[in-house]
């Protein structure tokens, strides 16, 4: 449903970008984009979400070129969850989630009771309904991220792009967010692309992986096949132990030692 074909992008001459990235995310897919810092994960997500335009190559949703869609059209198909969302003014949690209804409203239209119902349902689905009237600023990091995900749900899209959704959170919240995303994927059939550098988070959450290094695809495929001792070495220059963890129920990666210094 979401497809990138030979996508090239550069911020500027000499700067890191993407060099011919292709991917195909099927409906209901849950794909993790893995790679070291500066590998192009965020750039890929921004391109997929239409926030950047590829220098060459095409990005399509159900065959339609993202570059030819208006912001409103795109926002009705794709929601984006960044690593961290800070507000410059004080809004209540409900107001923040209602902002997800923007692409569904006319220029001067006010949110209807239906929109409020959709927003409250989204809050309930992320376990944050009790926070509805609290000022967003007063929430903890994990609560904020769940509220932002609720906003993405209120946007009622069938695609969700998440950029390092747990990087700013402690392990407790990481587990919580992973469970929430799995539930959203299962219950609502939302197709997800999650960029992360947390191998274990990705291994626990994603059905498929795309490994990105220096703007190129190193490997892609089902998590069980793509995540190996060899691929971790190629991705991070790290010798690691990749084993199935009975308690966690998924592959886990334990980094052992660095193979060579940073370039």
């Amino acid at each position, binding site marked *: 449903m979401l497809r990138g074909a030979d996508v090239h992008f550069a911020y500027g001459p000499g700067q890191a970008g993407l060099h011919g990235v292709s991917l195909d995310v099927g409906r209901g897919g849950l794909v993790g984009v893995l790679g070291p810092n500066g590998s192009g994960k965020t750039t890929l997500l921004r391109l997929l979400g239409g926030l950047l335009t590829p220098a060459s190559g095409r990005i399509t949703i159900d065959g339609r070129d993202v570059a030819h869609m*208006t912001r409103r059209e795109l*926002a009705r198909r794709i929601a984006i969850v*960044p690593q961290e969302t800070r507000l410059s003014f004080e809004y209540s949690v409900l107001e923040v989630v209602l902002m*997800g209804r923007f692409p569904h409203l006319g220029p001067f239209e006010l949110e209807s009771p239906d929109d409020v119902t959709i927003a409250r349902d989204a809050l309930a689905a992320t376990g944050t309904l009790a926070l509805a009237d609290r000022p967003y600023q007063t929430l903890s990091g994990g609560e904020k991220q769940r509220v932002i995900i609720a906003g993405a749900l209120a946007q009622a899209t069938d695609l969700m792009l998440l950029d390092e959704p747990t990087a700013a959170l402690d392990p407790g919240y990481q587990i919580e967010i992973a469970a929430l995303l799995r539930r959203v994927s299962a219950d609502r059939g939302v197709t997800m692309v999650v960029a992360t550098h947390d191998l274990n988070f990705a291994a626990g959450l994603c059905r498929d992986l795309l490994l990105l290094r220096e703007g190129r695809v190193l490997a892609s495929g089902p998590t069980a096949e793509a995540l190996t001792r060899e691929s971790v070495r190629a991705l991070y220059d790290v010798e690691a132990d990749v084993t199935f963890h009975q308690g966690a129920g998924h592959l886990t990666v334990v980094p052992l030692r660095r193979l060579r210094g940073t370039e």
Partner: protein
Amino acid sequence: MSLRRRMLITVAVFGLIAVAALVLAPLVGSAPISLRRAFDPSVPFADNADAQILFVSRLPRTLAAALVGAALAAAGVVFQALLRNPLATPFTLGVSAGAALGAILAITLPVSLAFAGVGAVPIASFAGALGAVAMVYVLSTIRRRGMSTSVLLLAGITLNAFFSALILFVQYMADFSQTMRTVRWLMGDLDVGSYAPILAALPFTLLAFAVFACLPRSLNLLTLGSDAAAARGVDVVRTQRLAFFSASLATGAAVSLAGPVGFIGIIVPHLVRLLVGSDHRLVLPASALFGAAFLVICDVAARTLIAPMVLPVGILTALIGGPFFLWLLIHKTS
């Protein structure tokens, strides 16, 4: 309570305050006047002292105060949303100084820039504001994540110093009587003298407010940052351009009338947010109405505090706004 009701109540309450201020302000002043005598049809207008004071002296400056207050307060709200910083205002950003430079050039230069029946001063004032805003815009686009308070304040200081130097240069080259006139105007002065300058500034203000009316919901989303706003369907670049353009227009109109009256754009939106929250569909109209009322009341104070002398209103707003700004700087910066 539904948003529609909150909007109606907000506009009604702040509208009432603005209307009350507008109606009562002309009746107050150093010389007591009688309404009955002012409206006495048997006395010709030229001989009617009460009517003269009311319609020639007080009403024009009250109307000018309302227009300037509304424009600067609304422009403040828009700049704050755009730059994602509650300390951004036309005055602190140096936009008022840019507008003042434009206006001073139009006042001082011997050539007439007027065209199509529109006065030269508002046009030059708008051009100056737009020039300053262009610099702020470039700075803000370089910094995608919104402007930090320190960058914003430094940019404002730099622009203010730069435009002030140019203004001083123009004054230095001008003759003495002109300098006296512009010095007083630069303090922020509502002594407009007649209705003509108000009428000249009115089309600019109305156009600015027409654009403002299209912005509130997009401004709400810009609070999340430009990427997050775009991801929710906001055409960010278009919104930014419209907002910067209309805020410059409003600032230019206000400064052409009353000089760079300071701090309205920060005091008013901040007080309004305390009362109605942050939704710009409430904050923007409420700030415009409350801004009008606030400056009208400041003008009454400026006319009566050291009567019969009239204080330039900009001195008064700076005396209130300076400490207020510092208080905000201490409490609101993260």
